[in-house]
């Protein structure tokens, strides 16, 4: 019965893809974890595990917005920044009252998700009512504004409570007090509570969220809005709230990624999440394939690892990195390569079916 229904077939194919991304990421996690446990993983790779997880989560989120919802977001790093600094502040504030690192990590990530989602809604409501590239413009500005805002924020606490000042540092803490945000210095002395397992769980959760959203009724509505706005509107879909759903989920995933990132380093400066970081994440998404989560994960892993592996090239590494970027861009859009890839794929699948 199922096979006769063409839609069911598409669903089946997509289910295969979904399963593939889970299998791949779990396999990678198990290999890395086993290598780390047995002491075979170099310090370089160990230091890359958590940031790679963060960038994957942020890129998956961005792909939901850019690939599935079809709205360009140039400020994903801004949402990461909101999530990261919220999480760092929450974790710093709770460090005495919640001694368990794991619990604090969960609470901090939740806070990061909520704050980033809040900003997503605030920005999304007015902007997504408009038709055109306005989201790109506004998110671009948002990234810059957040960077400036956090650069000028001073937040500290001591036994008397929380102190906050803006632009000029007017906080005067009692001895033993702690600055959570220190203007341009950002957050320092953060306890490092992120770990690879948390990163892996976050990736799996974000994949679950994104896939369940895409293949739900709302997900089909999101894609309908992307493909033909007028047609979608004519069948009674509320464009703004549909797009807002995708955008909010996207920004909250960035918030989660930022939270994990911020708690992985003992220091975090607001300048880290600048326009370049937003574009970098967009590059992962575009090179991985719009709407293709597995591709996005692969592109992120390769592109984060590449400059590190090229360190032995010394001065030429950024040059080679740029060339590789261009090559990937050309090759993934090359018809010949694509045809060949499809042929290989068909051959594999044909064999499988033959065996079955």
């Amino acid at each position, binding site marked *: 019965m199922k096979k006769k229904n063409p839609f069911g077939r598409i669903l089946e194919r997509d289910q295969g893809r979904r399963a593939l991304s889970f299998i791949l990421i779990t396999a990678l996690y198990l290999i890395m974890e086993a290598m780390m446990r047995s002491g075979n993983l*170099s310090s*370089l790779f160990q230091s890359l595990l958590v940031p790679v997880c963060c960038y994957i989560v942020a890129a998956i989120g961005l792909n939901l917005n850019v690939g599935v919802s079809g709205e360009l977001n140039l400020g994903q790093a801004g949402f990461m920044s909101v999530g990261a600094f919220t999480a760092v502040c929450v974790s710093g504030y709770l460090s005495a009252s919640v001694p368990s690192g794991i619990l604090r990590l969960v609470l901090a990530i939740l806070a990061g998700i909520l704050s980033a989602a809040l900003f997503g809604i605030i920005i999304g409501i007015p902007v997504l009512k408009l038709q055109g590239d306005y989201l790109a413009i506004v998110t671009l500005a948002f990234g810059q504004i957040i960077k400036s805002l956090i650069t000028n924020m001073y937040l500290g606490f001591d036994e008397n409570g929380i102190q906050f000042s803006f632009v000029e540092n007017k906080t005067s803490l009692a001895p033993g007090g702690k600055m959570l945000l220190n203007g341009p210095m950002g957050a320092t002395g953060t306890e490092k509570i992120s770990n690879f397992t948390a990163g892996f769980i976050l990736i799996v959760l974000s994949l679950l969220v994104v896939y369940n959203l895409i293949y739900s009724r709302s997900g089909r509505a999101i894609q309908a809005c992307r493909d033909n706005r007028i047609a979608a509107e004519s069948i009674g879909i509320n464009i703004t709230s549909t797009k807002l759903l995708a955008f909010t989920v996207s920004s909250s995933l960035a918030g989660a990624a930022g939270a994990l990132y911020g708690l992985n380093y003992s*220091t975090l400066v607001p300048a*880290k999440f600048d326009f370049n970081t937003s574009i970098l994440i967009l590059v992962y998404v575009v090179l991985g394939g719009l709407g293709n989560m597995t591709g996005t994960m692969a592109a992120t892993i390769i592109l984060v690892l590449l400059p590190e592996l090229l360190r*032995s090239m010394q001065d030429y590494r950024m040059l080679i990195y740029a060339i590789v970027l261009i090559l990937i861009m050309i090759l993934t859009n090359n018809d010949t390569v694509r045809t060949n890839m499809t042929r290989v794929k068909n051959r594999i699948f044909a064999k499988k079916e033959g065996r079955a």
Partner: protein
Amino acid sequence: MKKYGLMKKCISAALSLSLMVSLSACGGAAPAASGGASQGGAAAIKIGGSGPLTGPAAVYGNAVKAAAELAVEEINAKGGLQFELRFEDDTHDAEKAVTAYGVLKDWGMQASLGTVTSAPGAAVSQMYQDDGIFALSPSASSLAVIYHDSDNASDPYGNVFQMCFTDPNQGIASADYLQSHPDLGSKIAIIYKNDDNYSSGVYAKFKSQADVNGLEVVYEGTFDDSNASDFTVQLKKAQDAGADLVFLPIYYDPASLILTQANQMGYAPTFFGVDGMDGILTLEGFDTSLAEGVYLLTPFSADANDDLTQNFTKNYRTRMKDEIPNQFAADAYDCVYAIAQACEAAGIKADMSPQDVCDALKQQFTSMTFNGLTGQNVTWSESGEVSKSPKAVMIQNGVYVGVDD
């Protein structure tokens, strides 16, 4: 049609092949050591370090790298203990500094120059402590580099040391200097970069010390990355406020613009900078006559007459296409010599574990006295802070001239 398709196929095959080659080449290549490797087969003590070799802060990283390489080569040429230096790029980013640290640890570094800049330094200090590797940073001046709790300057890492002054020390030293030299100016304007932790760090301490010393601060102006090209507004306000001394706790790049624009508007107060101002005389396209009469507190001046400085300046210029060494380079050169001196004194061998090297160096550094380019009788406290006296210099005829206290 068919031929074209074939050609396309060939090209894409060649491209993918070159991609594969470049990928596998980078994966399998042996780590290339920069700087003087051991000679005569004797094992060398491995010194690591990271700094921005690319990006906007690259000038500091490259200066440190070149000077450290120079020092290692000189020490190795003398015979005795041999050193090997590996310097990695961290692009002034905490994330990259942590991965650079991973690369250095895999390489087997036994002691380190830490990082060149502060924010990355604060990110890796914890790792140096966890792994028990000794680090002496040439120029990461923030308190967060050596203290867990930088707000209260307590709980030091204990094995991360600094060769440069901390930011607060510079601010305090500047305010004290101005108090003891009221002839330089009595009404002070400050222009600082408020999104830069070095600049705002120096500013904050200068301000509080100025209050203590009873100095009159008439104007405070700020700028950030996005508007670091036009300072006429800040200068005009400073002029209107009647300031006859402008304190510039900023790097030389924006400082050069301030000097140029002040000159254009005919405003001629005394300009007073800190060590970030060092390098202004070597800035390309800057009319050095505008810097005449500028005061700055710096631990190093390339025009000093002692043999050590002159030798270093000569060798550095040969190495770096005639570039005049700045204070970053001098601090890095001193770092390597200080580590070498401590290694000699503690009898450290190349086959010792990083933890043993660390313990021995910690003990040496807190007890020894070091004479170098950036100061005589330099000592270190248990927390890793350096103690040396900043020198006030004035720019006259395009060179630094020491000012008597």
